[in-house]
């Protein structure tokens, strides 16, 4: 799946299917959903009828009439093709997903403890099934007993197996994934046809796609413009008649089709589908298009500190010895005490000592040492070795340890502990026998590049808030280092919820990620709630997006994709409307120059003949739809800039460009038409 997701824009299979779909979509009942293109279809139909009539009457302008009619049909087909292309990419993905959904035989556990074999299609929510190694999990559910490694590549594209176990936040399993080892009992939580896989298929296929609020509003604008131009063209004929220059139906319909916003009208739904598709390519499933739009509007990002802003674990960054102790002594004791310690913190101490003082790791087994693991009661760990009793742990624990041995923690060490805590680090005190040796500074390591990303977000007007269970002192220090705008320290699930409510009351839109069941209410409350795929079923149902990679940093990319979708829509709307200026200058003089030769001065493009001028405008109007399909599917170039800079940049490219481009395009087409004697 992972490799099929990054498919090229012009995949041959999709291309062929889209080609056929373009014709299927000519069905007026389908077309009616798109008022702009429906008007073009009606126009094409009318000109077709007139072509046959003129053909019977051997009309002299037949060659022009036929060409116009063909290009009008092409305009409709190109728009349909754009939509079919966007859908095709999703459909190909859906096919791959369907293969994972093949019917399997499930082992259902009956209330009396006995088991029976049933088809997975017959499973209902509440049933309990037994899945052993090698078997497919028959439906979405919650593990109620056991632990297993599961291959979820059918859903995530990630081939490394993941551990799923009963209880806690890793208990959810998805239908269509395979158990690789051990066996589990799963309580099924969804009915056939409503599973995650089903929803995923429907989503990528666009079957349930509903127009988003902004898309509806934009459609109203486009329909309104269409009516206005329809009015302008219909009333033009009486004006033309008064001026003794009546126009043919072909010319009037050509003018209408050129003026109504066909470019954006033809590409609008493709842009929407492609936006969803881009999310899928990032392994994110949005449950509604509304959520994607909301992502573009987000004002506040709530990011969990651990795993999102910082690497998952603290690392030793410094050894600070107590008075009378050398750094080497401290480092040596710290390393020895950490050698058997397999926690990431322990390993980082060993590494730091090695890097800074060249202390090589020694094999404890050779030294006949006794390892004292960390326990919740003593809150320290360490080794006993040839009479040396080395301990490391929290300040309180070590102080208690020293007191027990008839000693105490020196004031100087306490001062160091204070400093480390204030700088956002976690102090770990090391003691040997009755002496405190010093402090290890454990530090949260901020992920590379985060500061820059937060700065970009700030430039775009998005505030980031770090959520952490740390105390305010530590949180403030990390917040400063990571460059987030604000933080919520000692956060409990309720605090998170209150924060979201507070932001929303100010009119802001909030995005967050979460995976645990206790995140579910906040995920539901947030405007964009991204649940991790590894998370619980409750979390996945509460959020409106699911990240299959379970990468919380991806929230930032989701926001960018949302913004890009909106920008693409706006850019093509502006471009489409700006195009009209040039089309007027092509068509209007052509319509009336025969009656009023002075109007030739308005033919600023110096188009060869009235016929070639009108034809060129219609052809440009059709071809620009095809030309912009890649842009509609890929989205406009995205940069993290302030609204003012983005507007200036896009207004120049798509506004000014929209005015200038058709002048050049129409002129070129006119030259080609003249060269090949088509007009």
């Amino acid at each position, binding site marked *: 799946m992972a490799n099929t997701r990054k498919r090229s824009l012009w995949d041959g299979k999709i291309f062929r299917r889209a080609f056929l779909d373009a014709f299927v979509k000519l069905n007026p009942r389908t077309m009616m959903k798109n008022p702009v293109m429906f008007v073009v279809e009606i126009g094409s139909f009318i000109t077709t009828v007139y072509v046959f009539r003129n053909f019977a009457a051997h009309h002299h302008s037949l060659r022009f009439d036929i060409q116009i009619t063909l290009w009008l049909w092409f305009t409709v087909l190109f728009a349909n093709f754009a939509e079919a292309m966007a859908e095709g990419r999703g459909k190909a993905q859906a096919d791959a997903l369907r293969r994972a959904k093949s019917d399997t035989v499930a082992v259902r556990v009956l209330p009396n403890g006995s088991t029976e074999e049933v088809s997975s299609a017959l499973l209902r929510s509440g049933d309990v099934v037994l899945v052993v190694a090698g078997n497919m999990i028959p439906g979405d559910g919650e593990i109620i007993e056991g632990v297993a490694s599961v291959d979820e590549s059918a859903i995530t594209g990630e081939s490394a197996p993941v551990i799923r176990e009963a209880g806690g936040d890793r208990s959810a399993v998805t239908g269509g994934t395979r158990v690789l080892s051990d066996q589990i009992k799963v309580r099924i939580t969804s009915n056939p046809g409503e599973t995650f896989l089903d929803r995923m298929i429907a989503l990528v296929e666009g079957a349930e796609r509903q127009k988003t*609020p902004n898309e509806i509003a934009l459609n109203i604008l486009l329909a309104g413009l269409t009516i206005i131009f329809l*009015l*302008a063209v219909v*009333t033009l*004929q009486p004006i033309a008649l008064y001026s003794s220059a009546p126009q043919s139906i072909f010319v009037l319909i050509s003018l209408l089709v050129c003026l109504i916003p066909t470019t954006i009208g033809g590409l609008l739904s493709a842009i929407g589908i492609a936006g969803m598709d881009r999310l899928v390519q990032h392994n994110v499933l949005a449950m509604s298009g509304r959520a994607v739009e909301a992502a573009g509007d987000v004002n506040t990002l709530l990011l969990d500190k651990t795993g999102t802003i910082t690497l998952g674990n603290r690392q030793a960054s410094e050894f600070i010895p107590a008075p009378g102790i050398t750094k080497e002594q401290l480092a040596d004791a710290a390393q020895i005490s950490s050698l058997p310690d397999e926690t990431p913190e322990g390993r980082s101490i060993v590494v730091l000592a090695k890097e800074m003082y060249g202390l090589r790791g020694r094999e404890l087994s050779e030294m006949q040492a006794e390892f004292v693991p960390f326990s919740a009661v003593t809150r320290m760990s360490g080794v006993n070795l040839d009479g040396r009793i080395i301990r490391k742990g929290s300040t309180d624990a070590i102080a208690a340890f020293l007191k027990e041995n008839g000693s105490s923690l020196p004031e100087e060490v306490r001062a160091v502990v204070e400093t480390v805590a204030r700088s956002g680090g976690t102090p770990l005190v090391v003691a040997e026998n009755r002496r405190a040796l010093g402090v290890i500074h454990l530090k949260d390591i901020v992920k590379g590049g985060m500061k820059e990303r937060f700065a970009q977000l700030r430039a775009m007007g998005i505030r980031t808030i770090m959520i952490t269970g740390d105390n305010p002192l530590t949180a403030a220090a990390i917040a400063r280092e990571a460059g987030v705008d604000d933080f919520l320290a000692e956060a409990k699930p309720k605090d998170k919820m209150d924060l979201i409510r507070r932001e929303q009351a100010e009119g802001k839109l909030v995005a967050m990620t979460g995976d645990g069941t206790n995140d579910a209410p906040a995920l539901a409350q947030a405007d964009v709630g991204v649940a991790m795929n590894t998370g619980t079923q409750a979390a996945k149902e509460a959020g409106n997006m699911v990240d299959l990679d379970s990468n919380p940093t991806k929230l930032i990319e989701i926001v960018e994709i949302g913004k890009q979708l909106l920008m693409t*829509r706006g850019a093509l709307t502006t471009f489409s409307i700006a195009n009209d200026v040039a089309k007027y200058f092509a068509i209007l003089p052509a319509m009336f120059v025969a009656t009023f030769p002075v109007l030739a001065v308005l033919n600023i493009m110096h188009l060869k003949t009235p016929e070639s001028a009108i034809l060129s405008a219609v052809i440009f109007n059709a071809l620009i739809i095809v030309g912009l399909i890649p842009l509609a599917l890929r989205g406009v170039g995205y940069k993290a800039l302030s*609204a003012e800079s983005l507007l200036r940049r896009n207004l120049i490219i798509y506004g000014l460009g929209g005015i200038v481009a058709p002048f050049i395009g129409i002129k070129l087409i006119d030259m080609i038409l003249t060269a090949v004697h088509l007009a």
Partner: protein
Amino acid sequence: MTANGWFQIFLFFALVLVCAKPLGVYMARVFEREKTYADVVFRPVERVIYRLTGIDETHEMRWTEYAVTMLLFSAVTMVMTYAVERLQQFLPLNPQHFSGVTPDLAFNTAASFTSNTNWQSYVPETTMSYLTQMLTLAYHNFFSAAVGIALAIALIRGISRRESKTLGNFWVDTTRASLWVLLPMSIVVALLLVSQGVVQNFRPYDHARLVQAQTVTATSADGKSSTQTITTQNIAQGPVASQEAIKMLGTNGGGFFEANSAHPFENPTPFSNLIEMFLIFAIPGALTVTLGRMTRAPKHGWAVFAAMTVLFFAGVLVAYHAEAQGNPLLHGVNQQASALQSGGNMEGKEVRFGIANSALFATVTTDASCGAVNGVLDSFMPLGGLVPLVNMMLGEVIFGGVGAGLYGMLIFVILAVFIAGLMVGRTPEYLGKKIESFDVKMAMLFVLIFPLSILGFSAVALMMPSAGLSALGNSGPHGLTEIIYAYTSTTANNGSAFAGLSANTHWYNMSLGLAMLIGRFFMIVPMLAIAGNLARKKLVPPSAGTFPVTTPLFTVLLVGVVVIVGALTFFPAVTLGPILEHLLLQAGKSF
């Protein structure tokens, strides 16, 4: 074009610019019910009015109630105007003993003044009694303007209020607009105009003996020609100054006399001309400041002001340039500007105003939906006549009518924000309010009604040789311009006439009357719906990602949207009218 001409144009605009802020802030205070110096005088009067009429001034109206109240108020006063016109021969203050006005003309005039259009299908000094002029027409001059201001304030409240169901009280807004703003300014200006020689009396018309007898030859329909020698002249009188002030200040434009502001009793000196032009822009310009203050975004107000300014100067430049060129068909006539003559195309212009002040007046009066004229637009060069036409076709938003200009422009702002707003990567928002499908629907309705009325009525008129075309004074593209101008002027509630069209016919009185009502009230209802809908919304706090509506870039965008949305609709009509006429004139053909 001369340096002196441009100096006068800039002097005029400097006056508008300087007064915008104090007047705008003052109006904001008046409508937010903060303290003003004028409270001492007007607050007691206001209280008495509310007590007598039983209005609860603390009552807040939803948009629907606001709209219905406004419609009823306008309907009732329109019917009253119709009645006074029809019955004027039985009423006092009719020294010339004018008979009752015919039904279709009475309808047209009632619609015209109620809708703040002041289109005049009649010659006032030979049709309307002093009572009709003062009681009904001057009354509407005040109240159609006050209603316009009230509506603009309602829309501003819709933008600035958050999660509110109401927009204010129509009665209070209208009363305060009249008492605090229109009345005091009108009194001061009327006195100023009297100082310049504008008349103010109730006398019957003077009879004067001509210094030089005139011989007139007239040809009747059957081809007989008759010669008549004229030795005396009727000089119309009346309470002109009081009406003149509000005619300009309220962007009404309905002249006391047929010649409107070209008449020496209405506009006697270049100084009175400057005052009258300033009055047209005074309130519309200041309302942008009111917008900025009430929405707590002063820079946004100025950005809108700047967009209006750009469009205004574009119009002045074209009109002044076209008129200063003179007529290419006049060979051997010196049309150069010099110390002794204005030069350029002086046909239909007053010598005391010259080219610059006539072109400026024509631009100003059509930018704002005033419609007063100090020259004959029909005699302007084709491109000079194009400017007033295009100004109106853009929707009367270049400063525009009092109130109407601002709310019209704000609809364009909403469209601009919607079209281009997406390009910053957020769903469109305007000053923290999300623009959603209902707002777009109403804005498109607002924008759609305008060309529907203009192009629809014009097309019908063009297809009716007897009713539509026979009223034309000219043929060819000039005739086309006359018809389109009439429907544009009425739908845009401007009221200026291109002349050349004999509009006092049954068809034109009825259709133009309808165009005026459609152009006013059919557009107000969707506008108020937007106001009501915006008021209900939450306010999204601004950030660096918010669509900027306070910068020069926004001004450029707004100008672009006004021009493209306006021009694209009317480009074919304008091409076959003034532009074609201009080109044919350059080729030596006139109409």
